[in-house]
């Protein structure tokens, strides 16, 4: 499916042509350049709106850049750090499950206004999977923007009715002894999964644990990596 924007990142060359007459991204090619790009109408209209809002003083000239930097600084590694801390420190884990905002503040993540983070814990008998069937709610304030598949129509429609089939596509399979709990984050809470700590990680340092936690395990379509057997 060509949805028009699945293109390489823009290199902001002065000579780069954008906003040409082509309304259909993909029909405009400069042979030999990867950055060949034609912005879609909604993309151009977005940039137009941004410029106009700055000119009218609705937003400041540097506001968008400033927030882009804030967003760029977030990543699933932040979620991984929180998970590793919870694995190391049972008291912290309890606080994280009870009051994620306060627990995150303890480890240096300032509260973000707006939506509220919630954490659900995976155990040997319970596995959580997070989806947002209505749009694409995701704990962005901690983990950064969601991956493409999380926003896809296939994931949004299938995860609530066939979580085991969806997880199988991600290489994850559970027997009947494990209860699968799908959380459809339809309202104001943004759910992050606290994955089960892998076996064989006893005695590992927190930083080593952080490296085992994958983004997918924070959504529930994956589990953390196993430690290397012979390091």
């Amino acid at each position, binding site marked *: 499916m060509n949805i028009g924007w699945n293109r390489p990142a823009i290199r902001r060359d002065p000579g780069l042509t954008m906003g040409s007459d082509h309304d259909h991204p993909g029909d405009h090619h400069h042979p030999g350049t990867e950055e060949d790009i034609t912005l879609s109408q909604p993309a151009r209209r977005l940039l137009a709106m941004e410029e106009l809002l700055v000119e009218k003083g609705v937003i400041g000239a540097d506001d968008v850049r400033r927030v882009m930097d804030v967003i760029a600084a977030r990543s699933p590694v932040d979620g991984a750090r929180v998970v590793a801390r919870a694995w190391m420190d049972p008291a912290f884990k309890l606080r994280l499950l009870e009051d994620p905002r306060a627990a995150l503040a303890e480890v240096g993540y300032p509260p973000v206004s707006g939506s509220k983070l919630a954490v659900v814990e995976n155990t040997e008998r319970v596995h959580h999977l997070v989806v947002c069937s*209505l749009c694409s709610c995701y704990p962005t304030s901690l983990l950064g923007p969601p991956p493409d598949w999380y926003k896809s129509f296939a994931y949004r429609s299938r995860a609530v009715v066939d979580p085991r089939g969806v997880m199988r596509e991600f290489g994850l399979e559970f027997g009947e002894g494990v*209860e*699968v709990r799908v959380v459809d984050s*339809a*309202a104001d*809470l943004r759910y992050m999964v606290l994955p089960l700590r892998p076996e064989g990680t006893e005695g590992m340092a927190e930083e080593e644990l952080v490296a085992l936690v994958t983004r997918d395990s924070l959504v529930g379509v994956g589990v953390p990596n196993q430690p290397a057997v012979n390091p």
Partner: protein
Amino acid sequence: MRVLESMVDTHHRTPGYIKGRVGRVEALSGSFYDPEDRAYGGSGLPKRELYLIEFGMLSLWGLRYRGGEEDKLLVDIYEHWLEPAGDPAGPRVDHGF
């Protein structure tokens, strides 16, 4: 609790697939501005209680569901979309509180 079956076409955050279905309250998620009012420029007040409701997958989907009795679905639902379940519609339906 039963989720209201209301088929409004204005903005709301209750997924269609749980409308009219019965689940149990798993947790209180807090109180939040009413999205149905805020979406149209309103204040969102009074705030609405949000409940995390748990549904049995098999009771939701029946034979479509490829998994066991133990599997669940959880959704946050605003209080004004919930009513006491009364007489549960069948043996597979989870009990309200």
